[in-house]
């Protein structure tokens, strides 16, 4: 190993990627900060410097507050539900059953599919009347159980339901990747731990709570953080299915930024909004890390 000799070739090899990242990552990031301090309209020639006026305006903007609230609400449901459902399915799949690989592949398909195509299909799923899948199933349920659940709900057109529909869609799409990660985490748990517990007389439930879950903690943390970050980046289903409606109840941050930048062409304000989003994501991720770290420390102390 010759650490002393600096091989200038190293610089040559990393040069293309470094230049690329500088031009297409660092520069834009700084440019975004710069733009957020200006009133910058794509069609107008003048870009006056306004300091933090954009950020101040955002704090007072009822539409942006609504946007943040929607996004947080969405994440508040999508993340816990998503993590729990994918963990549950991973537990189902982890046993040595034949054909498990097929299920794994099938569940993964929505995650690699075109979001636009999926959105189009989900519009169908949510249609009112007998044409929509959900209402069709409710109708069959009514027939089977004798219940009177209404089957003409236009999910995408009703304020609370539209958000619920988006959450449901995120569960459906994200199940595969999250499950796969949990599977890897589950397989990494050493078998001797379970054997020792069984010898001590623990039943399945105790094994789950005292071995599986704690061992899975780092993986769970990872899934929580990545799902949170992903949920703050919701865009295509909103663009295709709800357009932020009804009544701006599904106007999430990324969609709002899109409108600001490319419908109103206010890229200065849109940059400010992006940085606010960035700050929120950082905060959320850091907060989750901190919580989990504390939880882990307490666990190990016991």
């Amino acid at each position, binding site marked *: 190993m010759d650490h002393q000799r600096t091989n200038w070739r190293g610089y040559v090899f990393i040069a293309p*990627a470094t230049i690329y990242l500088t031009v*297409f990552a660092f520069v834009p990031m700084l440019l975004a900060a710069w733009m957020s301090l200006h009133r910058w309209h794509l069609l107008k020639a003048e870009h006056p410097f306004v300091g933090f006026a954009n950020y101040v305006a955002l704090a007072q903007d009822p539409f942006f507050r609504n946007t943040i609230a929607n996004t947080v609400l969405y994440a508040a449901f999508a993340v816990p539900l998503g993590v729990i459902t994918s963990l549950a399915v991973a537990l189902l799949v982890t046993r040595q059953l034949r054909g498990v690989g097929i299920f794994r592949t099938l569940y993964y398909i929505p995650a690699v599919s075109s979001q636009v195509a999926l959105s189009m299909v989900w519009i169908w799923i949510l249609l009112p009347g007998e044409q929509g899948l959900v209402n069709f199933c409710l109708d069959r349920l009514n027939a089977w159980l004798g219940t009177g659940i209404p089957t003409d709900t236009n999910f995408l057109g009703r304020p609370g339901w539209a958000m619920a529909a988006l959450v449901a869609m995120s569960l459906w799409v994200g199940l595969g990747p999250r499950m796969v990660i949990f599977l890897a985490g589950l397989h990494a748990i050493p078998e001797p731990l379970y054997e020792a517990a069984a010898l001590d007389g623990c039943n399945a439930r105790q094994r789950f709570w005292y071995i599986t879950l704690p061992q899975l903690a780092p993986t769970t943390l990872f899934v929580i953080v990545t799902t949170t970050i992903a949920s703050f980046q919701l865009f295509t289903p909103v663009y295709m299915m709800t357009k932020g409606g009804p009544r701006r109840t599904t106007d999430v941050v990324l969609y709002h930024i899109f409108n600001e930048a490319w419908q109103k062409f206010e890229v200065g304000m849109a940059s400010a909004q992006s940085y606010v989003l960035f700050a929120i994501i950082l905060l959320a991720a850091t907060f989750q890390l901190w919580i989990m770290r504390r939880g882990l420390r307490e666990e190990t102390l016991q």
Partner: protein
Amino acid sequence: MKRTLLAAIQYLLLAAIAVSTITPFVWMFFTSLHPPQAQIPTMATLFCPDGWHFENYTYVLTFAELPVWRFAVNSFLVTAGVVLFQLTLCALAAYGFARLHFRGRDTLFFVFLLTMMIPAQVLIVPLFTLVQRMGLLDTYAGLIIPYPYLSTAFGTFLLRQYFIGIPRALDDAARLDGCGDWRILWYVILPSAKPALATLAAFAFIWTWCDFYWPLLATSTTTMRTLEVGLSVFSDAYGGTRWPLQMAAAVIVLVPVLAVFLAMQRFFIRGAVVSGLKG
């Protein structure tokens, strides 16, 4: 007996979830074969349309105003371009970080990793302005080169991990034969790193093919649209009508990416796991 019962319940549950995952795709496919002017089929009529209209696909592909075949060509070109371009960048950089020694190497790598922290939304607005100033909007170059999802750092990271694992003995043997760094990279490292390269290629393919946001902004003329964006324009054009045609277009968009996924799922799933456990 209890074991078999448990196993049966497990299978049942898994199958139920599988059905719910597959149903939309099945519906999509069957609806695409209904007569173009048909109403949205109910579950009852889904499997018995008024004739099997495979010509919906030909119609959609050659529809003059919205040339889906053109969108497909664009998508292939752009995706191939991105995959090749990113693989090149990442392989070169990964070799540099993994095998070569130079001042500031580890610091620079750390800086690389930092870029993974930047979310794409922050970048897209200024990236658009930048690309506009370069005059690359509405061109293939504008779609291929600026890739706001920072998989360059991720790809470099992934490849570097793998390269480090390749035994140095192979390098040394090649060097004894008189190979320089370039040849070592090409003849020793890359062949040994095929799984990692395949993983990266699979990721890049699927990300690029299904990318909606950037192509939506970077293209404005219809003929430059990629499939994903073209599909949304197609959907706009028909609104709530002609579902069979819309679904035919959707199937056309889905088939290539599903094919790639099924062929490369080994790499894809492993890659997801690697990134998960390391992160």
